[in-house]
């Protein structure tokens, strides 16, 4: 339920295995083969980066807080696990998700304001008709079976940062890794606390005094192996081994490993989760915004979805 992830609709209805998710998407593609062939699109990771940029654009205009934008991103990912993207106007879907997420996260904006900012953001692809957004809201809620309460990893991060004595920089880095995970399938594949721990682990391995996540591309391989090493030490570490106060990142990693050894967190999940985000950072290097935008805009225009 609302406070309890284990009984939440998120865990019961919106948590998939990789295979289940692939099947869902395959089915959508099979249903619209002509469309899929007629309008090729970049890989999902790159579409997600593009959507994230557009959400951020709209969110900035409206002054939306990060958590509401995260909720909007999750709504979009859920929605497109049920609806083929080429059937929709992604700009309208983005604006609708932001509009709905703001209501759900208790920072509502009037529909007219969202529509007018949507129109300012994407003048050639966005109708000024509020009823279009209202209609899309029905569509989105219906596809999500009205399950709109979402659990984010931010809360786990907030409650764990003290336990692992994270510095402000380490917390900030973990926070931004959580922000980034909404551009991947991770929120549909793992529990929010797993994602939060992955983010803490990576933040400790990456070290904030390095240049930050965006530019780690070339070093991804070494980060992956450092993270792996930290995780494999979970199995060998003895609980209760001595920790020093004000420990450096290396001992913090060790402390995290000790803590994991005693927790119920599934280490396999954590390994997979880490690999997924690392491979996302690799693919991010090849992202081509112009190509992505053109391919989306092409089907929106050709199919008259902006009307």
């Amino acid at each position, binding site marked *: 339920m*609302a406070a309890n992830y284990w009984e939440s609709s998120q865990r019961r209805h919106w948590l998939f295995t990789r295979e289940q998710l692939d099947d869902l998407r395959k089915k959508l593609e099979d249903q619209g083969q002509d469309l899929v062939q007629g309008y090729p699109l970049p890989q999902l990771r790159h579409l997600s980066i593009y959507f994230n940029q557009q959400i951020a654009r709209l969110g900035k205009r409206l002054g939306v807080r990060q958590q509401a934008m995260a909720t909007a991103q999750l709504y979009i990912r859920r929605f497109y696990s049920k*609806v083929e993207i080429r059937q*929709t106007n992604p700009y309208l879907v983005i604006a609708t998700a932001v509009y709905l997420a703001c209501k759900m996260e208790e*920072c509502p904006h009037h529909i007219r304001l969202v529509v007018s900012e949507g129109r300012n953001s994407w003048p050639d692809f966005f109708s000024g008709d509020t009823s279009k957004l209202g209609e899309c809201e*029905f569509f989105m809620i*219906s596809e999500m079976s009205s399950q709109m*309460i979402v659990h984010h990893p931010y*809360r786990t991060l907030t409650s764990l940062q003290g336990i692992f004595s994270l510095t402000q920089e380490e917390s900030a880095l973990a926070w931004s890794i959580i922000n980034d995970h909404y551009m991947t399938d991770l929120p549909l594949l793992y529990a929010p606390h797993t994602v939060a721990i992955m983010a803490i682990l990576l933040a400790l391995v990456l070290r904030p005094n390095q240049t930050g996540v965006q530019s780690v591309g070339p070093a991804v391989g070494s980060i992956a192996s450092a993270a792996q090493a930290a995780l494999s030490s979970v199995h060998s570490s003895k609980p209760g081994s001595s920790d020093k106060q004000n420990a450096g990142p290396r001992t913090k990693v060790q402390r995290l490993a000790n803590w994991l050894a005693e927790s119920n967190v599934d280490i396999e999940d954590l390994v997979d989760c880490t690999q997924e985000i690392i491979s996302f950072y690799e693919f991010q290097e090849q992202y081509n915004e112009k190509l992505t935008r053109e391919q989306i805009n092409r089907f929106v225009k050709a*199919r008259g979805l902006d009307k």
Partner: protein
Amino acid sequence: MFPRRPHSSHPIGRGTGPVGYQSKVRVIDRYKVIGFISSGTYGRVYKAVGRHGQPGEYAIKKFKPDKEGEQIQYTGISQSAIREMALCSELSHMNVIRLCEIILEDKCIFMVFEYAEHDLLQIIHHHTQPTRHPIPPATVKSIMFQLLNGCQYLHANWVLHRDLKPANIMVTSSGEVKVGDLGLARLFNKPLHSLFSGDKVVVTIWYRAPELLLGSRHYTPAIDTWAIGCIFAELLSLRPIFKGEEAKMDSKKTVPFQRNQMQKIVEIMGLPRKEQWPHLVNMPEYNQLQTLSANSHSKSGASNLEKWYYSTINSHSATSVPSSNASLGQEGYKLLSGLLEYDPEKRLTAEAALQHPFFSTGDKVSANCFEGMKAEYPHRRVSQDDNDIRTGSLPGTKRSGLPDDSRQVKRLKE
């Protein structure tokens, strides 16, 4: 956005032209409406049965769509409807009304709930007819336990109900109490904006907690337990314990101090004192209290609740009715005063109230609040005036002169 295709039965998007949103299920295909129950600001409630062998009966709450000109338009769903839809989709507890499904169809929202034959308002009313006769003590105890149990579940899940009152407490024909109408409910874990900024006035005035009346800005689950205290009192006396008159908002839309309501509370509970409620002096409307004391309650300011309680539970025993509430005894008073505690921080929580000796002394609490009762309460009134769930609630489409037969109305429609 979506390919537009008027009145086609194509699944969405198969075609090449634009289509509008169409629900995958239609409410009239899934349910047969057997009557109209009630209407409110949100819309209307209908009683229905399943068409495909779904067991039991249903209450379908239809949200009123906004209307612009002659045409109904999508105007965006209200935040309160969104909250209710989202919360009800998560909640699952035997003492909270169960949502079966939500259908979004033809610009309307239909929330399908399990049907409850009774509600506390109706049960209380029944005991005033033809003359006042008390609700049996075992029934009161069971209702209170189940009500607190549902409320405890909500609070444990960070949900504030914010509108607990007899009309919103449902009772099934098998005596199960279900907290209903989460239209004002919301989560209180880390709201992005303070709870105050959202909706300034909550809770029907008679059940409104003193901290709200005094202008408190951050309120807590304690507002729900105050309301439960008021409901407990009403189950005993069969009339609202603090029946004040609501001061209306003025033209500047400032929220007025609810003097009359606060006065009613003070008359029974005495004036709140800062010794018993340390944060009292920080309440925005604190200064208003002085003006109250000058009025009718100039005496000691001590609470009359104990006197009120004993005279209430003993009052019926003078009549020939055998089952007076005198058996609820001293523990009943302690529970009541714990729920009607002025200081929200000292007020009993739902969880603590469930552990109260009131429930562990005397007869065992039954999960069926009607256990041992001979008579049955009258069934919920269901009217046949408006059986067409698809058009009935549309403003300006009030229909008259329709045959008083649901099937016939249906057929006309189809």
